[in-house]
């Protein structure tokens, strides 16, 4: 894109291309392990999440092989049950959370013109404790009741309803590994969220008023605040479960009068806000990427902020829409129907503002933008299936069926994963100094898109034909087979697309064209630093006068500060 060359600065000396002497592998390793630099920690989060994405993706492939035919016995029932438990737990806690925190760690200080996070050491601690959680979860394959294979991994489902997790129904140690892993990852998340909030509130560069923060930073602020009030209840519930399992207390022990429903409430008080914790960063990426590739300022900045804050608040009051079939009674069901449906209003505002941002723009179809546009369509559909589920009577039919599985993969894959891919194509040049191959990127997009739609469009159907989720096999006479075949075939395309993406990153890192500081002709502060940015980010702390400091710089005749 044609951009007038940004002002060369005194920072010229700090060019990153200086030829440092070759260093020993151990030195480099030591560098990364002991680092407190937010960029390195961010990259470690991202790398760690990518590894787990492939692991959990392979688990999904195994499940799809098993389900492609009725009465299949590719894996045993126990193995299947631990596959979906590990897949769900890993994807949510060790892919979704870390990858989003990774981007947040990397981008938030850069975008607000800060040199690091507010508490760099806490930052490193949070990363390592979550990383340890993930390793502990997978150690259950070896540690929980011996080395004899897949049966020993947790198999209680990702929301681990009581009393299935009690010692009587879940002997051995697999459930203990599950709780511990979640507990540690929760502590890490709270630490990182605290850091992000303190950074945005206390470390902004001069002129960066709250009303001038890039929307990405705003959304990270909301997400992180949600973490305090949502992840903490999960931590509390995990402590209770651990007390039950280790020292025989009775929180969820139904035989001593404990309640199974209490766990459901505690879990979903966490679980529902959690899905918004995951989607808000995806919205955040969209808020940066869509304007840049439409060449227009975001439409309705204030409404976007208000909608995000609104979503944050409303999301705290809707949890029982996961419990419409628990027998809460007609009154409670009605309340949660309304609370849930209301959330489509602020979400709709976001979608419409993106539409208005595209409107009248000049849309550049880079790989990054293509993923973002895919996200817009898919999130629309996912939201509408969510509204169907929020109609309690409809949910009595659809709840816990493959329709729900289709709904949430539509959001988690079609929404979040697509936006994560988009973010990679957009920020990889900043992080590595090299451009990703656009050609491979477009192949990646189309292959993954086909796979996504084959899998998750058709997944709605068996749900409506009565197929419950979490079944390791099904009867041949129900008419579900043909759909499951199609669903499984799509997963292969998704795997191929993901492989292409991994290949693209590796190839481009070594062979890709050099990116330069600002390859997209973008407007936020991170593009004013070299790619990759030096350890201290900014040689001189910048100061800003509008939401798009680089726009002001590039268009001195018509700066944004005139309009705000």
């Amino acid at each position: 894109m044609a951009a007038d060359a940004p002002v060369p600065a005194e920072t010229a000396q700090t060019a990153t291309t200086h030829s440092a002497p070759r260093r020993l592998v151990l030195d480099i390793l030591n560098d990364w392990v002991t680092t407190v630099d937010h960029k390195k920690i961010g990259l470690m989060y991202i790398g760690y999440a990518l590894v787990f994405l492939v692991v959990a993706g392979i688990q999904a492939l195994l499940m799809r092989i098993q389900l492609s035919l009725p009465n299949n016995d590719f894996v045993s029932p126990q193995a299947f049950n631990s596959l979906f438990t590990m897949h769900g737990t890993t994807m949510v806690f060790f892919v979704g959370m870390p990858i989003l925190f990774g981007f947040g760690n990397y981008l938030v200080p850069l975008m607000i013109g800060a040199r690091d996070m507010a508490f760099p050491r806490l930052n490193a601690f949070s990363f390592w404790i979550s990383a340890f959680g993930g390793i502990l979860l997978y150690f259950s394959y070896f540690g929980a009741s011996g080395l004899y294979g897949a049966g020993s991994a947790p198999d209680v489902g990702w929301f681990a309803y009581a009393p299935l997790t009690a010692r009587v129904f879940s002997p051995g140690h697999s459930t203990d590994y599950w709780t511990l892993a979640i507990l540690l990852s929760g502590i890490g998340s709270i630490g990182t969220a605290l850091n992000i909030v303190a950074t945005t509130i206390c470390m902004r560069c001069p002129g960066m008023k709250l009303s001038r923060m890039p929307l990405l930073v705003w959304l990270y602020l909301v997400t992180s605040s949600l973490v305090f009030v949502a992840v903490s209840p999960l931590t509390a519930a995990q402590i209770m479960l651990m007390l039950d399992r280790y020292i025989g207390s009775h929180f969820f022990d139904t035989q001593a009068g404990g309640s199974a429903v209490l766990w459901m409430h505690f879990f979903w008080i966490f679980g529902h806000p959690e899905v918004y914790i995951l989607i808000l960063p995806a919205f955040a990426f969209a808020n940066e990427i869509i304007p840049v590739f439409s060449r227009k300022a975001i439409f309705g900045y204030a409404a976007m902020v208000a909608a995000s804050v609104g979503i944050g608040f409303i999301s705290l009051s809707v949890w029982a829409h996961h419990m419409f079939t628990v027998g809460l009674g007609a009154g409670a069901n009605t309340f949660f129907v309304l609370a849930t449906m209301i959330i489509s209003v602020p979400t709709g505002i976001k979608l419409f503002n993106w539409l208005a941002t595209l409107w009248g723009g000049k849309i550049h179809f880079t790989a990054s933008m293509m993923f973002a546009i895919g996200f817009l369509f898919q999130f629309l559909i996912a939201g509408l299936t969510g509204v169907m589920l929020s109609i309690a009577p409809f949910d009595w039919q659809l709840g816990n069926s493959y329709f729900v599985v289709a709904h949430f993969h539509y959001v988690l894959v079609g929404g979040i994963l697509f936006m994560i891919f988009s973010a990679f194509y957009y920020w990889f040049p900043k992080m590595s100094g090299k451009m990703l191959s656009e050609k491979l990127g477009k192949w990646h997009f189309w292959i993954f898109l086909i796979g996504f739609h084959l899998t998750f469009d058709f997944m709605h159907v068996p749900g409506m034909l009565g197929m419950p989720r979490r079944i390791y096999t099904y009867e041949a006479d129900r008419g579900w087979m043909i759909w499951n075949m199609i669903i499984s075939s799509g997963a292969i395309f998704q795997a191929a697309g993901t492989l292409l993406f991994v290949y693209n990153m590796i190839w481009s890192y070594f062979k890709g064209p050099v990116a330069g500081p600002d390859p997209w002709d973008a407007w936020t502060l991170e593009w004013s630093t070299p790619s990759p940015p030096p350890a201290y980010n900014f040689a001189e702390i910048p100061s800003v006068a509008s939401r798009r400091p680089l726009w002001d710089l590039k268009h001195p005749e018509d700066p944004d500060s005139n309009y705000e």
Partner: protein
Amino acid sequence: MARTVWPDLAAQIPTGFSHGSTSIFAPAGTPAHSIFGLSMLVLGITLAIFLVVAGLFLYAVVRYRHRAEDANASREPSQIFGSNQIELSWTVIPILIVVLLFLATTRVIFMTQSIPKPASSLDINVVGHQFWWEYSYPKLGVVTANELHIPVSDPKKPTPSYLTMTSADTDHSFWVPRLAGKMDLIPNQINTMWMDPQQAGLYLGQCAQYCGVQHAKMLIRVYADSPADFAAWVAHQKQPAVESADPQAAAGRAIFQHNSCISCHTIAGTVATGRFGPDLTHVASRETIGSGAIPNNPANLRAFVDNPEHFKPGVLMPAMHMNDKDLDAITAYLASLK
């Protein structure tokens, strides 16, 4: 994949596209019908929203794409920061849609969950077990398992069946899509639901809340019988277990009573009063065993008693390790329990 049964592909396709036996779009009872009506409304509204919004997106993406051949391709488009009027309109319209949906939903919720129970209704207690269903009819004095019989309900003279449900161990969920929405069975908690099939026939379903290893094979079979058939069925089920004259069956009975079978199973009129497993008083009158997992015939009965894991790995009935002679006898006995 040694044991994989390749189903007849041709037979799959028609059921795949038509309303299969567990489709929520083939309602056969009042609750399922009212949900069906509501769901059609919701599908219509969401489809309309989708068409409008996706259409606008599609238009924007095509119309406003960057065209390199344009005269001023390198100039930035004009920057627009927002518009209160437009933003207000796309806040208010969704609110109105939400209100509409909410009112329609509330009606169905209360119609299904809060209407008074008619005096002519039939009471049934359901207890979920890992991995089978216990059904009892307190007013009729009938206890059975896995296959539920209820009368057809004539809309003019309704005889709905009311289920009072709880669980003996973990959470389960009772879901027969053509008759009603699902309802969970939770320990220490009583839930209720009702259904009123309007046509005789077999309605399938299965447990819809993950409850452990064999959650997948906790199938539900609801037989809707004509009033006469139902009365006959009840009369038969009330009888104590049949005392077969066949010597092999008698031998089987003795073996049954000397084994631990009796600590888990009840056979009315005998010393077997266990409650951990399904009631076997009239087990031979059922069409399936293992909670719908396999057809009920002597060969399967024998194989099931020999090693239940073969059909349902993770099942809570242990393999009984009997010799062939005892197995044959027990099978004869069980098969005689008509």
